């Protein structure tokens, strides 16, 4: 890839069918002898210059999931260019590009058709332009590495020579797409497009993107969730050199937007932080002063001891099955609130002028922020410009734009450009955490150790309840069609939401990060109770018949038992599952379908002298359909395992007196370098539609790990994180 900087005359031409818009401007340049190139936009996703330079648009936010590389790869493949012929350009907010966000591992799967068509359509127009010039049929022409050739001829015409003529053609419909067997870019390992800029410290991130002259805002929000500013004294804060102003920011009506706060504005970040530390704020708190993990836990416990508020599934008759079964198992599982901990703290920049707005900063929802800004300021969306930068992590935190609203409101209030910067402490105290949950299982086995009944009573601090959504509070909390539903003759699932002042939101692999842990752990318990191998127990349950199972949640409308069975079998074989465990290595297994992809994992652990697990090796087998970027895909799958392991070992937010009691990474530890296991991943070859990969390995590791601990010790871990589990609390 080359960076393309020269003095050129730019002309942007849109395809005839889109508007026939012609724009031209001159870049400043004294030397008129220099090359003059026209830059032609064949569609919203790509531009080709008459000097041969090709730009491909990366439409979605890059949060570490690799879409700034993988999405342009799809376009380049169909455009029939070599990867080193193109430059990737990050798009701003642009309604022509469809939805722009990072969530649900959806970037690849939902853009697959549009991106392939964008590349293929442009290629077809370039071929048509050449065919017209040569006065031959387009069937006699083909494209290769950015050049159109006539069959049998050695010399062809490069795209740059054809693009002006191509732009005048009508945009063709239903252009042919390449067969996977012909892919030259897809499936290869393409390194991240920003790697050079990253390793040389270029300013790529939201926090780096502040124009000079903008004020920095550091805000004091209520330590108790939901508290409102009653009064404040800014005398000391205003004496800090560099501090310019201290203002109150009123809370939005929506709990997902900004909270009541006092903002210290300064010329630099350090002064703003120092000023904030000297603020005296009195808070008014109407409810939730006493909120705590203990209160929430007792509420979760109460609700899972009674009939659920919502019955999500009821196959057969579980009560009758339990009454007649020779073996009945009961188990209670628990998961804590989790903090997102993006390494780049939340930040946003806004410059609200009289009749226009400029926005930039780290977010997973760039497509939604102009609308938000428009509703706040009354300035129409078409007068709002938003640039995208890299995000230092997302994990679901940046699906909520509360901090962007802070910047917009402050800039409007002060009539100045403002960058809002959160400290680590702000970030941990004012997150939208993964909901806490409790899950009570009852399972029944028959005389042959076959699973006859499965009953789950679940309760969580529903994130849809928190935000006051009209959607059912169970949404993304539990999944009534998830395995083993449909394979157990008597199956019942109930759910109850718990209301709390603790903010909750989407955390990488929402819902699945809890349900996979509980389901795959309880299946392991049942397998042991049935005296069966846990992998064989799962395979027996799935059966040998290939079935398409209905699945109403995200990733559906169905899933294939054949594909699920295959990842289970491959992982067990490859991960050495069938070999006897050694004294020092113990194995655990988990398999899961989510968001359209299939994953199975074998984890190998060793125990230290306190029985704490040292995770030595993780094997994962993945079926994600067509593979886009091999290196990027493996990176996501590796990262998901480490993220899930970190949460399983250490994750958990401590709520007392209505607030979060941890402040930084000393009290909220994350997994570190020396604890990372060796990870080997196999991605199965497939010609099925591609699925995303950003979240899929994460949910399995907690279950596979705890199943391995059981294999090693006979102790069953039913409550996370491990560090707070009584098994380890009593030994440490």
């Amino acid at each position, binding site marked *: 890839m080359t960076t393309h900087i020269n003095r050129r005359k730019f002309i942007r031409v849109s395809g005839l069918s889109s508007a026939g818009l012609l724009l031209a401007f001159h870049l400043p340049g004294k030397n008129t002898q220099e090359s003059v190139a026209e830059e032609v936009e064949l569609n919203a996703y790509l531009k080709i210059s008459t000097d041969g330079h090709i730009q491909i648009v990366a439409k979605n936010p*890059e*949060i*570490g*999931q*690799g879409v700034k590389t993988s999405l342009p790869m799809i376009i380049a493949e169909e455009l029939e260019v070599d990867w080193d012929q193109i430059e990737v350009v990050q798009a701003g907010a642009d309604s022509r590009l469809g939805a722009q966000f990072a969530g649900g591992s959806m970037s690849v799967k939902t853009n697959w058709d549009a991106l392939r068509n964008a590349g293929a359509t442009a290629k077809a127009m370039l071929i048509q332009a050449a065919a017209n010039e040569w006065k031959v049929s387009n069937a006699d022409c083909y494209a290769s590495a950015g050049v159109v050739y006539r069959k049998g001829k050695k010399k062809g015409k490069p795209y740059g020579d054809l693009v002006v003529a191509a732009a005048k053609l009508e945009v063709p419909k239903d252009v042919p797409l390449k067969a996977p067997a012909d892919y030259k870019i897809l499936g290869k*390992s393409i390194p*991240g497009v*920003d*790697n*050079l800029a*990253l*390793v*040389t*410290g*270029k*300013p*790529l*991130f939201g*926090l*780096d993107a502040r124009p000079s002259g903008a004020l*920095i805002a550091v805000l004091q929000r209520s330590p108790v969730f939901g508290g409102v500013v009653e009064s404040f004294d800014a005398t000391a804060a205003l004496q800090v*050199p*560099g501090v310019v102003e201290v203002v109150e920011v009123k809370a939005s009506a929506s709990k997902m937007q900004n909270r009541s706060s006092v903002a210290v504005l300064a010329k*630099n*970040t*350090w*002064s703003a932080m*120092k000023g904030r530390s000297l603020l005296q704020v009195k808070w008014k708190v109407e409810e939730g002063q006493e909120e705590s993990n203990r209160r929430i836990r007792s509420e979760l416990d109460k609700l899972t001891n009674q009939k659920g508020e919502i019955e999500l599934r009821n196959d057969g008759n579980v009560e009758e099955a339990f009454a007649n079964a020779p073996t009945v198992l009961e188990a209670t599982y628990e998961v804590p609130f989790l903090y997102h*901990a*993006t*390494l*780049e*703290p939340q930040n946003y920049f806004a410059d609200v002028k009289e009749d226009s707005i400029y926005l930039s900063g780290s977010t997973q929802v760039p497509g939604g922020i102009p609308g938000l800004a428009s509703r706040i300021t009354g300035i129409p969306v078409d007068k709002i410009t938003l640039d995208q930068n*890299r*995000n*230092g*992590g*997302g*994990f679901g935190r940046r699906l909520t734009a509360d901090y962007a609203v802070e910047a917009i409101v402050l800039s409007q209030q002060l009539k100045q450009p403002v960058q809002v910067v959160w*400290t*680590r*402490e702000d970030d941990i105290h004012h997150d939208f955490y993964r909901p806490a949950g409790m899950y009570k299982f009852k399972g029944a086995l028959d005389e042959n150790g076959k699973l006859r009944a499965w009953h789950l009573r679940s309760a969580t601090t529903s994130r849809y309840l928190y935000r006051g959504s009209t959607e059912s509070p169970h949404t993304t909390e539990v999944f009534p069609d998830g395995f083993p539903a449909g394979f157990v003759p008597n199956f019942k699932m109930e759910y109850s939401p718990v209301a709390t002042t603790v903010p909750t939101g989407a955390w990488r692999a929402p819902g699945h990060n809890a349900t996979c842990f509980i389901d795959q752990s309880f299946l392991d318990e049942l397998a042991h109770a049935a005296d069966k191998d846990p992998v064989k127990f799962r395979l027996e349950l799935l059966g040998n018949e290939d079935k398409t199972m209905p699945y109403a949640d995200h990733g559906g409308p169905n899933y294939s038992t054949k594909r699920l069975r295959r990842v289970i079998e491959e992982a067990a074989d490859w991960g050495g599952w069938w070999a006897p465990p050694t004294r020092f290595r113990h194995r655990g297994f988990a398999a899961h379908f989510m968001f359209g992809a299939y994953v199975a994992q074998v984890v190998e652990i060793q125990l230290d002298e306190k029985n704490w697990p040292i995770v030595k090796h993780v094997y994962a087998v993945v079926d994600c359909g067509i593979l886009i970027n091999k290196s990027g895909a493996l*990176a*996501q799958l*590796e*990262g*998901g*395992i*480490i*993220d899930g392991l*970190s949460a399983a070992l250490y994750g958990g937010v401590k709520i007392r007196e209505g607030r979060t009691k941890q402040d*930084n*990474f*000393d009290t909220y530890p*994350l*997994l*570190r*370098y*020396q604890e*990372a296991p060796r990870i080997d991943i196999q991605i199965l070859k497939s010609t099925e539609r591609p699925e995303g990969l950003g979240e899929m390995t994460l949910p399995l590791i907690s279950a596979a790990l705890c199943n391995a601990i059981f294999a090693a010790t006979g102790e069953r871990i039913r409550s996370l994180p491990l560090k707070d589990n009584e098994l380890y609390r009593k030994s440490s």
Partner: protein
Amino acid sequence: MARFTLNINGKQRQVDVDPEMPLLWVLRDELDMKGTKFGCGKALCGACTVHLNGAAIRSCVLPVSATVGAQITTIEGLSEDGSHPVQQAWMEVDVPQCGYCQAGQIMTASALLANNPKPNEEEVAAVMSGNLCRCGTYPRIKKAIDRAIELSR
């Protein structure tokens, strides 16, 4: 406020700031060098790592007044073109996911290798354990450090 002359990446730079201001914010806000990252502000994550006289230090807790007279190297000064063996190895192994921690990781690894060209696994772990990567690139960081050791030969 006070005036300081700092030696950053071989150049003398003048700043007029609060003596307590950490080097991190002098770099980012006063000198517009955004390669050094803010992660925690408490020397817990390593995102802000720079070299002070060749040693890896956390610039988020080091007051600017304590850096006068020292040779400071930031990610921008490791090499201008990414040709340092650690940078080369990072690109070859395709380490970054979000990439936010990587400048700090690279500064920690490069200080280690400058002082100990052939560290063993424990020595690498002891040093790298101070740098958090929230995306979980640790296995690739390990590979890249091995590769950088090879490239440095």
